């Protein structure tokens, strides 16, 4: 397989802006790096000149520092708007609900079923070998139609509200192609939201060292066209 030195093709709605910011940053900092190295080499090789004088410091140091301040401010400002759009607000109430559960060394994905509500869970009921890796409590009505899968299936073009949990240690939930990454912590639930835009199969990786099987804690996300996804959901049974 051929290596691409750049990011895998983006497949999420917010990814285009993120990629633009990344490209801008890489271009600016690569150019600054080349410029600084060139100044370093030129400074050494050029014929010796007079001592740099104190009164030139404004021109030599403070003006460039002011320029760098403006540059960093502009980059931070731009990227801040991206971050705010990604994380400041919650998901749309109509967004699709799905839960990702990390455990050593697998991901499970729970869908809320027809009632669009997750049933309560209990760690004491977790039993992956018996088909209940999420620890769904059978006493809770809302959980009766919840179903759990080992691959994540999502519709293209619809916002996803992803609940993240972990059962044992910290795991890192990452889908490079969808430009999302968020740690899953035991004892806490985090929400991230995003909109997959292009159908396809993308990798889910664990990005927080979680034990000896960390390197093989992977899964797949299948982004389906909306109609296909609806068919898929209808076919699922708890």
């Amino acid at each position, binding site marked *: 397989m*051929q*290596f*691409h*030195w750049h*990011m895998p093709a983006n497949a999420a709605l917010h990814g285009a802006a*993120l990629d633009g*910011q990344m490209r801008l*940053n890489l271009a600016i*900092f690569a150019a*600054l*790096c080349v410029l*600084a*190295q060139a*100044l370093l080499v030129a*400074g*050494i090789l*050029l014929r010796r*000149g007079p*001592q*740099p004088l104190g009164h030139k*410091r404004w021109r030599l*140091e403070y003006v460039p*520092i002011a320029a*760098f301040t403006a540059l960093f*401010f502009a980059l931070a400002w731009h*990227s*801040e708007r991206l*971050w705010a759009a*990604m*994380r400041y607000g919650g998901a749309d109430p109509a967004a699709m609900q799905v839960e990702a559960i990390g*455990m*050593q060394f697998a991901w499970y994905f729970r869908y809320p079923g027809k009632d669009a509500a997750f049933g309560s869970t209990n*760690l004491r009921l*977790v039993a992956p070998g018996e088909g209940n890796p999420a620890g769904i409590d059978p006493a809770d009505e809302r959980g009766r139609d919840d179903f759990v899968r080992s691959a994540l299936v999502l519709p293209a073009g619809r916002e996803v509200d992803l609940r993240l949990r972990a*059962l*044992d*240690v910290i795991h*890192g939930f*990452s889908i490079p192609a969808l430009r999302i990454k*968020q*740690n899953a*912590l*035991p*004892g*806490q639930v*985090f929400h991230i939201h995003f909109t997959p835009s292009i159908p396809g199969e*993308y*990798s*889910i*990786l*664990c*990005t*927080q*060292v979680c*034990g*000896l099987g*960390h*390197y093989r804690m*992977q899964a*797949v996300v299948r982004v389906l066209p909306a109609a296909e996804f609806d068919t898929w959901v209808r076919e699922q049974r708890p």
Partner: protein
Amino acid sequence: MNRETQSAATASTLSDARHLVGTVVRPRWREHQRIGLGYLGIALFALGIGAFLSLLMRVHRVLPALSLPFLGVSRPEDYLAWVTMHGTLMVFFVLTVAPLSGFANLVLPEQLGSRTMALPLVNKVALWLTALALLVLLAAFFVPGGIPIGGWSAYPPLSVLPDAGPGQATGMDLWLLSLAIFCIASTLGAVNLVVTVIRCRCAGMTYERMPLTVWSWLVTSLLTVLAFSVLLAALVMLFCDRHLGTAFFVPSLTWVSGAVQQRVGGGSPLLWLHLFWFFGHPEVYIAILPGMGLVTMLLGTFARRRIIGYRLMIGTTWLIGVLGLLVWGHHMFVAGLNPFAGTAFEVSTMAIALPSTAKVLNWLVILWRSRPKMQTPMLWALGFVSIFVTGGLTGPILAQPALDSYLHNTFFVVGHFHLIMAMAALFGIFAGVAYWFPLMTGRMLSERLGRWHFWWTVFFAYNTFFPMLLTGLSGEPRHYAQLDGLAGVAGALVRSTLPLERHITASAILLATGQLLWVANVIRSWRRGQPATPNSWLSTTMEWAPQDTDLICHRAPCEYGLPSQPADHRAVFADTDESGAPFLPQWATEPTAE
């Protein structure tokens, strides 16, 4: 200045000038210098093991099925154990020990015009505790389960629950004990350095005249006291979670390997992340600030240039220190912080890029049209600048939470911090050894071997760590024991980095092999190197002054080639610099009024 003092001053200048062309220095190892050598020995030992482990890691990543002599085929947990041990050894026992404790003990009192440390007993205890901490850490190789596998940042609950993986039982306890001892040792050592800087300056050594090395050791020591005390508290809390049933860092219920574990109360792993990185980020400045100070002094010395903006350099050192305490959250953008905190830490992290930028600009200004003396300490200083620029410029990218939400825990981060913390800081260490070697041993390191070593190292350092930025951009995560043989699209993504990974591994092996040149150079030159002249590099700082009289500091360091130099004074120094440029050491008295 009246006539008498003027002539006395001229006489003393002349005697200094004679001293400059005199015979071999007879190194007199003072107590604190022996301690400094002890620290450097510890660091060298840890560096050897840490580098060897990194080679094992590199080979395992590209050839996971390879059977190595004595080790056999390595398991994934072995890989993670090496990761943990490599990180812990390098961060604590190399990058904290050598630039701060090692070099400061070697020359800090002399740079202040003093002969002793303020608290010699505390200083000695700190050295022995550091050695003890290293032994305790290395003992983890030999206990059942081996070394812990959670990396040097030891995130809970992995680090709390012994069932969570091999090495998380006894090995983890030894890790905790070792670092707790190390915290105490570093704090003691840092307290001694702070008191020494405040109390042991010779007459005339005002704060503004202190070399930038001293300034950086001072700020670094203050950071050490603040950061390591927080780490010590966190380590004690982690110990309580492991053995006393408390729940600082674990929730009330966890499900590990099929069993539920319950605790009274419920904590959060996020608390550990806050405490750890509140220590961890100042720690990286503890590793790099001494290098920055030394490099600035070396650029001035070998370019025979005044360090313009000296106050600005002192100020940026302080700014980096203070802001360094406010940026820990950028390690946690995707850890589960409130997104507003992400913004706050983005701002503080972007802000800390400015004093670093100011330092780089200053270095470029000092060097501009300087035609410096390209002796080995200067080569390492220039290498430091080059690598620091390359690695440092990736910092503002990672400071943006939106971009970090893609790059976090990829090899981009590994490349970033290895360029700065590993390579630039290591270049600072090599610069320091080359620069102070004649002072300590009375002999010069071989310039020829030194040049080979430098160019070899800088070439393979770039070849090893720069490609990591690229594999990271392609999405390759950290801490993966194996890249081949994984299923599905995820396996394909990880596998696609293998060609570049092989290049990195080959470069890393060559990078490490090249260090034998340095070992050979140090051993050979120490025994029968070319005898050094006093003030071998025509430095201005006081550690190069004749140490047999009481010293008085007369001026700021790096007073080279002032245009206002009187002609007769120029003549006194003419034979000390090939180009005939005059220079004024801090200890010599200027014949004309100051």
